[in-house]
């Protein structure tokens, strides 16, 4: 059952991340689909890929985005 929840979380997380106006929130929320996909990889019998995705998808990529947002604009322009 947990895998279906993860699938829904991945898709919803992606949508929610893209609909934020605060780009910093967007950057942090990017980690949610990343983490959900990492768990899904574990469920799909690929533990090594899950480890890599857990590091890259939930830590490195959101930090990249957060740094980019810090260097540019916090709020989305009109």
């Amino acid at each position, binding site marked *: 059952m947990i*895998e*279906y929840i993860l*699938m829904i979380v*991945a*898709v919803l997380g*992606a*949508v929610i*991340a*893209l609909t934020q106006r605060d*780009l910093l929130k*967007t*950057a942090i929320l*990017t980690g949610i*689909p*990343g983490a959900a*996909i990492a768990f*899904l*990889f574990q*469920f*799909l*019998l*690929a*533990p*090594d*890929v899950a480890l*890599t*995705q857990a590091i*890259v*998808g939930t830590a*490195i*990529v959101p930090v*990249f*985005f957060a*740094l*980019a*947002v810090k*260097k*540019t*604009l916090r709020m*989305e*322009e009109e």
Partner: protein
Amino acid sequence: MIIDPQLGSFFTAGALIIIGLFAALFIDNLIKKVIGLLFIADGVNLFIVTMGYKAGGIVYVFLPGMTVDWFAQNASYPLPFALVLTSIVIGASTLAVMLSLIIILYKKHGSIKASKILGEKGNQTQSKTPGDKI
């Protein structure tokens, strides 16, 4: 009706790819556009991993006590997983390059809207000194 986890996973991958394409096409903010591209890459990775999945199978580690035939029938298919590892790393690195270019362009134009800084412009290029150091 409950769908097969593998099929559900394929649908998730497809949904992520479509969300990514939608974001790349319709969102004008460059950072969100790049996030959309990340979702495309994630969706493709999920798709590939799902292909190697075997319902009711085991992780592809050969433990003592298994016979070769039993292992071949029950283990998941590891080749796609090896590909995905490479693809995740490539995705993260191209992402870093794109974000650094966005930061440079923000310093130049003061905006991160695609229609403003990557919009329609004249086609003239003017070379500064090509002899200068890079």
